[in-house]
């Protein structure tokens, strides 16, 4: 593999760009659990700090950043409610970004992937694993607090509603929503553009001010990432 030439922070806090000798540029984050990777990603030591490469083909948030997301709502100490944590690929990078003082409440309902998620959480004290259905947020009320960021990637047809419901319970006013929309899981018969528009409208009528819609192609085909600010209902 090609050598690292330099690593520098992007205009987003705690999100870095790594330049390799062969000219390629990849995103990376500072590893909160040094010595361990999560999904086979490369570990990079640079100026005595260990970084983890953040693969835009594996993580929609990285894809969105590569495709021009204008601002990142994550900062050190952020509280994040993450719906659809799966085996923890993106969760681990969010955990890196918010650092030890931040918290990631990672909700996932499939036992199969949660088995892998808890392996990740064991090494990351800022990840609180929640095996539960995001459609019933009251059922995990005993484990969470109000959050600064709601991240939703659950590939469900009614995810805009699920996101809004969770926001009404747990998202702080002025907090941010990151919502990944997969056109095919919402309606296979409609054009993706039409679907995105309708989903954005749903968010607007539920108290969100939609800031940006980022198309994730080629990292994920027929996907967008929506960044919105919550004004409350």
């Amino acid at each position, binding site marked *: 593999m090609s050598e690292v030439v330099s690593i520098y922070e992007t205009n987003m806090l705690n999100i870095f760009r790594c330049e390799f000798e062969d000219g390629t540029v990849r995103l990376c984050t500072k590893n909160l659990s040094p010595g361990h990777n999560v999904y086979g990603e490369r570990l990079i030591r640079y100026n005595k700090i260990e970084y983890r490469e953040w693969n835009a083909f594996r993580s929609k948030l990285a894809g969105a950043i590569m495709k021009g997301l204008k601002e990142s709502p994550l900062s050190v100490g952020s509280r994040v409610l993450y719906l659809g944590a799966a085996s923890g690929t993106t969760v681990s990078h969010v955990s890196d970004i918010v650092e030890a003082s931040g*918290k990631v409440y990672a909700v996932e309902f499939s*036992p199969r992937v*949660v*088995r892998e998620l*808890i392996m990740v*959480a*064991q090494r990351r*004290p*800022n*990840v*609180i*694993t*929640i*095996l*539960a259905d995001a459609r019933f947020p*009251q*059922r995990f*009320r*005993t*484990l*969470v*607090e*109000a959050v600064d960021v709601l991240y939703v990637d659950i590939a469900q047809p009614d995810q805009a509603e699920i996101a809004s419901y969770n926001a*009404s*319970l*747990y998202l*702080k006013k002025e907090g941010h929503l990151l919502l990944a929309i997969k056109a095919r899981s919402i309606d296979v018969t409609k054009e993706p553009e039409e679907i995105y528009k309708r989903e954005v409208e749903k968010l607007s009528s539920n108290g969100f001010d939609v800031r940006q819609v980022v198309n994730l192609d080629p990292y994920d085909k027929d996907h967008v990432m929506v960044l919105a600010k919550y004004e409350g209902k």
Partner: protein
Amino acid sequence: MKIYLVEHAIGAFAFNDRGELVDYVHNNKEIGKVVDYLLENEEGEPLPSSLELVKKVGAEEVVVEDEREVQKLQAKAGVKVTYATSHVGARKFRESLESFALSTHFASTDELYNYLHQLSLELTRRKLRKAAQRRDLLAIQAVRAMDDIDKTINLFSERLREWYSVHFPELDKMLEDHRQYASVVSRFGYRDAIGNKDELVELGIQEAKASRIIDVARKSIGAELSEADIRALTSLSDSILRLFQIRDELNEYVDSVMREVAPNITALVDSSLGARLLSLANGLDELAKMPASTIQVLGAEKALFRALRSGARPPKHGIIYQYPAIHSSPRWQRGKIARALASKLAIAAKIDAFTGRLSSDQLVDQLMKRIEEIKTKYPSAPPRQESQKQESQRQKGKRERGRGDRRRRGGRRR
């Protein structure tokens, strides 16, 4: 008075309609207990701390967050209960979880999150265990299948060796390893085709040995075979190689299932020995009920019963003999290490079966310390006299054992 009830892992909190904290009752800090409460709470059962709180403040009406809790709380606390998602108390509390934990002296911020982290892991493992529903049985079947495959591989390999020896008799002694032997037959067929050292090395055979095999193949005294003869032979060797491959896959599978259903046992011994223990005990719950002394001799039942009948020395270890630190240690240390391992296994099995906790680091540490201790305390064999006495006792045992066996056989005929 009407209160807005907030239930959280740290306790139950009552707010008034202006969003001010009226009173609270903390949960027990013992994680195992709280896990039980939260599991029930998810099904609509009020927390014990909530019941205590409602009584303590003398509430006449309680507003809860989950609809399913309305009836249960009403019945248990005998007060009027309604529900509202995201009520004043709920918002207030969750926006300042840390400061409520601090001001009510539950814990510091670090302690609070440490507690939530531990709790979430344990709660999740408990839920996985429920969802898993006896996935230990899968590990047991898979490890038994591995044993069946091993037997089959041995049987087929013996046959292959005899058969191929008609053509290349010298190879049998030169390659002890069944997998390498079958690979050679599959790869080359005719012994005359064995001419390239690199190809043999690729199969995992050492260079020196590879050269010798090539040499011997040239001078072999075996019979000549036809194409059809060779094809029949290689179809058997191919099957053996396929069995090895299945065995590898099963091994990996057993490993992943064991890490999930019995992470603490798997950390102490490797996954296939762990699965064999589950197999001998017939399940994780069964193993968890066994005392360490039973676990120590699991798999050596025959020898144990023989000893009990005849008064001979009982076996020091059953299947756990496979644990490297036991079989690679001098004989006089083995029994002590076996006892230490068995006692840790008994604890690990209980943790795996009844909690979602991961205590493997501690268990492994303690075991390693104990093994170290045994090694330094008993570096050499016990004095001669001792061992002679033991030896003669064993001889006596053997004799009696012989008689015992005969008696038993007589009994069976009746």
